[in-house]
């Protein structure tokens, strides 16, 4: 390790870093703008000036830009030399000459890197009296505000948006002192990572529009570490909440990135950042609802829909407990349906209540089958699930049947970085340090190979050097052939056209040549054959390389893999439930169905759901949103959303991560498991199962119980401290030490302050009392350090800039027993296609496919109207034209949608957007068959029965 001297002190530093990041790692404060820990240096802003001395004799030294200076062993530098300070003061004064002076009305104010750096550089008084250059702003869509006058021309925004995230609709326009960062024409920023501009831009040019609609300053936000619930990548977030204006209830106000070295690093996707608003949406359930008996004249509701009225929570809980008691006496049967979007704790509590035999997964057969496949693949020692940095350093990527930009967005961003590895290798051979971003990017190397085979690919097409659009069956066949090519075994029976054979050979050669190949696949194709072929391929590659193959498998929902651990194989799937109930219909025992945070219409075809409801007497739902299933429930309990509760999710890697309540949900909202425990508390008769529930007072009680019951989930009791943990006798404060308005915010109701609510689940306070320093505990999600008010202060809490959080990585890998994957080589199925039908292939949308974020106001603006994709050839065959309405006839009804041309949709298939509002109920039918015909009359898109 090189040793350097800074202002007379000797330090040992990492020689691969530049001087600026080394100094920041040492804890020194040096102002900077254009350098970014993830994006490296370009030397554009000149704010990070330091002095370098030739030797100890040198008295004056020379000015250097620390972000552009490699570490020299024995180098002597100064941050505090007068010349450096003066230079930095001059730079900030120049940068501020055109500043519009609108901090009070700027959303960035209070967490503005420009404010921090201005202060740090000592520029406290404005001398410039000349005229200021001004710009007009642009409309950039529902997510981002634009206030161009605040720009200091650091170029971070375009470097992130274009170079890092692959966008192409944000440019540096104009020239000299009039540079403008915006779009050629007004309009929505199209890249799905645009939200990161809010944190990347060191000023208030790009701010969060959804936050602005219910704005408070950073210091007024109550926060706790959370996990994004909008896909299974498991990005760490820091949601912020504060009491709303008209009543005492807090509302969720925004999401910001919470650095996790192995998952999200510095960036989130837009679904994760802006999807939070579902929590405050009109469809949110915050009361206990039950069937309304009186007939409403002229009601427009569907005749099967149940009309609800608010009831007293105690009555509802009592009613549930009566049913539970009846079940104890064998007079009633209670069935529980779990959910992949709810925490392990909630699922386990329901399982405990109804008994393992009566607990169902809430997934259909196929979804559960593919999840179990993922699980068994990841349990093989020859397969390794890579972290984000590992993905970023792969030198060849093969993506099989997964449109990751829409199903695991953050991973697509990582793959984009992997594409640059050839360039980076070239840089290294030329001895250009990797942080020299502009120089590295100038090297005209080809992309590292990225190969795609599957149904649809979004956002990555510009870096993919081979793409093959095929149906899942053909994708599996291709993968299978590839595995055989790699293992050197030639099956005589694989019939493939020559161009595919050629591509198989080429891909195999690429994978074999690569030092760090990566395969990506997932469950979104709903095709077990593909996953089996992927298994075969990974195994073949691992045998050849003698190291585990890196295989990233994307699952669909935040806790998909967690839920999978509670079931054996496909046991407990929903079809099985319908079958069991049908078989036992004659038993004539009343049945209650408790559904946990699950919309069954997205899981099963409509007829099966109707059948299920007709087979039970009482439907009890615990959920956050008023879903179609809620409209059929006799009783609805309002459940906490992720940011309102504590629990555990298991992400795509098998990493169990705990999220903490940021605030208490409004009204009667509480965690689903608490409703169940409340009901059991009222029961007059108990058995062993139920008395366990009675004992549960804290979320961690359940985590511990899960750890005891399931060996694979043993790590759950080590995920974090329990509610009794204290640091220096104190809890961890959710509110910053400058939280304002404590004695006024509730004063209109009652002038005397009420004590803060106690958190029964976590060692954290709902007040400003307690530990604030994120270096003392990772439970502190308010990333702030004196003089560093913006999120950039994260470096103060890392081992080194861009490294692990101090205190080690959070989350723990679940411990799945190691099993070699079975030999699936001969299971390539050939299912018959009904005549004249088309196969419905699920295609995914960043905005529109995920259930919860669809209810977010900003995201719902971007969701497309129902449509299906078809290739031009089929279009002619069916006699339909682009934009026309067609009827999709399926086993659960006719869907009228717009038709769109798509050259890459495989023949004989239509691409159906998964979960898109209006087509949600098609999700369960895919990848089944449908017939397509032009709509008889032109009417609006929608569903018919």
């Amino acid at each position, binding site marked *: 390790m090189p040793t350097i001297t800074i202002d007379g002190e000797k330090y040992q530093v990492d020689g691969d870093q530049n001087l600026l990041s080394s100094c920041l790692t040492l804890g020194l404060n040096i102002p900077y703008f254009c350098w970014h820990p993830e994006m490296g240096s370009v030397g554009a802003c000149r704010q990070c000036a330091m002095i370098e001395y030739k030797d100890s004799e040198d008295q004056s030294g020379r000015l250097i830009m620390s972000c552009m200076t490699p570490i020299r062993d024995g180098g002597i530098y100064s941050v505090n030399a007068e010349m450096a300070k003066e230079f930095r003061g001059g730079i900030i004064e120049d940068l501020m000459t055109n500043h519009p002076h609108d901090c*009070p*009305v*700027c959303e960035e104010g209070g967490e503005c890197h420009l404010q921090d750096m201005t202060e740090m550089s000592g520029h406290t008084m404005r001398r410039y009296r000349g005229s200021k250059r001004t710009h007009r702003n642009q409309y950039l869509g529902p997510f981002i505000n634009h206030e161009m006058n605040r720009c200091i021309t650091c170029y971070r925004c375009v470097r992130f948006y274009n170079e890092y995230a692959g966008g192409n609709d944000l440019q540096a326009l104009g020239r000299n002192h009039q540079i403008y960062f915006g779009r050629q024409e007004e309009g929505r920023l199209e890249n799905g990572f645009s939200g990161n501009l809010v944190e990347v831009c060191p000023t208030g040019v790009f701010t969060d529009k959804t936050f602005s609609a219910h704005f408070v300053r950073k210091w007024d936000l109550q926060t706790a570490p959370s996990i994004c619930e909008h896909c299974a990548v498991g990005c760490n977030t820091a949601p912020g909440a504060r009491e709303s204006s008209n009543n005492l209830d807090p509302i969720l106000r925004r999401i910001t990135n919470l650095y996790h070295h192995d998952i999200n690093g510095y960036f989130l996707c837009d679904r994760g950042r802006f999807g939070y608003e579902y929590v405050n949406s009109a469809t949110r359930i915050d009361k206990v609802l039950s069937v309304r008996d009186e007939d409403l004249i002229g009601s427009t509701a569907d005749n099967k829909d149940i009309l609800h009225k608010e009831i007293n929570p105690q009555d509802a809980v009592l009613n549930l407990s009566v049913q539970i008691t009846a079940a104890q006496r064998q007079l009633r049967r209670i069935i529980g349906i779990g959910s992949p979007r709810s925490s392990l704790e909630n699922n386990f509590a329901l399982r405990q209540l109804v008994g393992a035999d009566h607990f169902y997964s809430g997934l259909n057969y196929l979804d559960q089958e593919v999840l179990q496949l993922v699980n068994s693949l990841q349990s093989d020692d020859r397969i390794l699930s890579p972290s984000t940095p590992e993905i970023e350093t792969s030198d060849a990527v093969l993506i099989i049947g997964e449109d990751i930009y829409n199903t695991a967005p953050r991973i697509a961003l990582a793959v984009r970085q992997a594409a640059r590895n050839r360039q980076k290798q070239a840089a290294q051979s030329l001895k250009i340090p990797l942080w020299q971003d502009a120089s590295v990017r100038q090297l005209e190397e080809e992309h590292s190979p990225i190969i795609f085979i599957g149904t649809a690919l979004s956002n990555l097409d510009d870096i993919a050097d081979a793409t093959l659009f095929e149906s899942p069956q053909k994708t599996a066949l291709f993968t299978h052939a590839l595995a055989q090519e790699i293992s050197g075994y030639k099956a005589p029976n694989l019939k493939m056209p020559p161009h595919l054979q050629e591509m198989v050979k080429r891909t195999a050669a690429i994978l074999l040549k690569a030092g760090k190949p990566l395969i990506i696949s997932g469950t979104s194709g709903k095709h077990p054959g593909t996953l089996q072929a992927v298994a075969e391929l990974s195994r073949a590659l691992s045998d050849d390389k003698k190291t585990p193959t890196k295989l990233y498998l994307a699952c669909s929902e935040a806790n998909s893999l967690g839920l999978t651990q509670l079931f054996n194989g496909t046991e407990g799937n929903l079809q099985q439930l319908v079958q069991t109930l049908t078989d036992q219909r004659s038993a004539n025992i009343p049945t209650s169905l408790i559904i946990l945070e699950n919309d069954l219409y997205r899981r099963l075809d409509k007829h099966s759901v109707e059948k299920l409801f007709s087979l039970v007497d009482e439907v009890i739902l615990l959920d956050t949103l008023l879903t179609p299933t809620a409209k059929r429930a006799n009783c609805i309990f309002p459940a906490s959303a992720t940011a309102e509760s504590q629990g555990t999710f298991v992400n795509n890697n098998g990493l169990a991560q705990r999220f903490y309540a940021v605030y208490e949900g409004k009204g009667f909202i509480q965690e689903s498991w608490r409703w169940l425990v409340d009901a059991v508390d009222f029961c007059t008769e108990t058995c062993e199962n139920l008395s366990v529930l009675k004992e549960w007072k804290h979320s961690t009680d359940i985590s511990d119980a899960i750890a005891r019951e399931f060996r694979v989930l043993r790590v759950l009791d080590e995920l974090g401290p329990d509610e009794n943990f204290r640091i220096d006798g104190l809890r961890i404060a959710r509110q910053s030490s400058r*939280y304002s308005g*404590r004695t*006024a915010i509730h*004063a*209109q109701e009652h002038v005397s302050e009420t004590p803060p609510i106690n958190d029964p689940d976590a060692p954290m306070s709902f007040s400003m009392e307690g530990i604030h320093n994120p270096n003392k505990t990772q439970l502190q999600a308010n990333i702030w350090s004196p003089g560093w008010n913006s999120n950039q202060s994260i470096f103060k809490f890392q081992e080194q800039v861009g490294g692990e959080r101090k205190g080690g990585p959070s989350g723990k890998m679940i411990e799945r027993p190691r099993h070699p994957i079975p030999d699936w080589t001969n299971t390539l199925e050939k299912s018959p296609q009904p005549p004249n039908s088309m196969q419905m292939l699920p295609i995914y949308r960043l905005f529109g496919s995920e259930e919860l974020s669809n209810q977010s106001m900003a995201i719902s603006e971007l969701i497309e109207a129902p449509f299906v994709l078809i290739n031009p050839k089929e279009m002619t065959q069916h006699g339909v034209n682009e934009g026309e309405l067609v009827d999709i006839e399926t086993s659960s009804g006719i869907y009228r949608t717009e038709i769109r041309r798509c050259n890459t949709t495989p023949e004989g298939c239509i691409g159906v957007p998964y979960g898109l509002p209006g087509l949600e109920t098609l999700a369960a039918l895919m990848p089944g068959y449908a017939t397509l015909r032009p709509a008889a009359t032109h009417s609006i898109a929608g569903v018919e029965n």
Partner: protein
Amino acid sequence: MIASQIRSMWLVFKHLFRRNVTVQYPEEKPYLAPRYRGRIILSRDPNGDERCVACNLCAVACPPDCISLQKTEDPDGRWRPEYFRINFSRCIMCGLCEDACPTYAIQLTPDFEMCEYDRQNMVYEKEDLLIDGPGKYHDYSFYQVAGKAIAGKDKGEADNEAEPINIKSLNL
């Protein structure tokens, strides 16, 4: 010792012939300078618009945390407090809010007569705080200085601002 006591008695005796400094409050009211720190008001700018832009700086400066407000944005582009509340039963009249305010909206006044039998009556809302004039600062208008465009004041029209750049021109 004795000398000091005699001196004290002499001083007390001398005061018998001095003018009274106690005034007969409330019949008689002493002069309080405009900068006196009493009851807080919210003022308006010279055009009669609410000055407060809901920046939250007063609230965060307040030592007993007795100011609370919520930002909202009007169609004219101005930020305004949706509600603005001061709990005077907590206020210590330190004036830090006035110091922190970048718009001269919040000002302390020489009125200190705020007795109530019921503490709840000490909670003032925006309607109670907002006065009709500019208070101590007659000419200041925040939006005239700051670059954010609002209805009636476009980009380039604030103090010292040049015409907005046309990014589609050659910009030589």
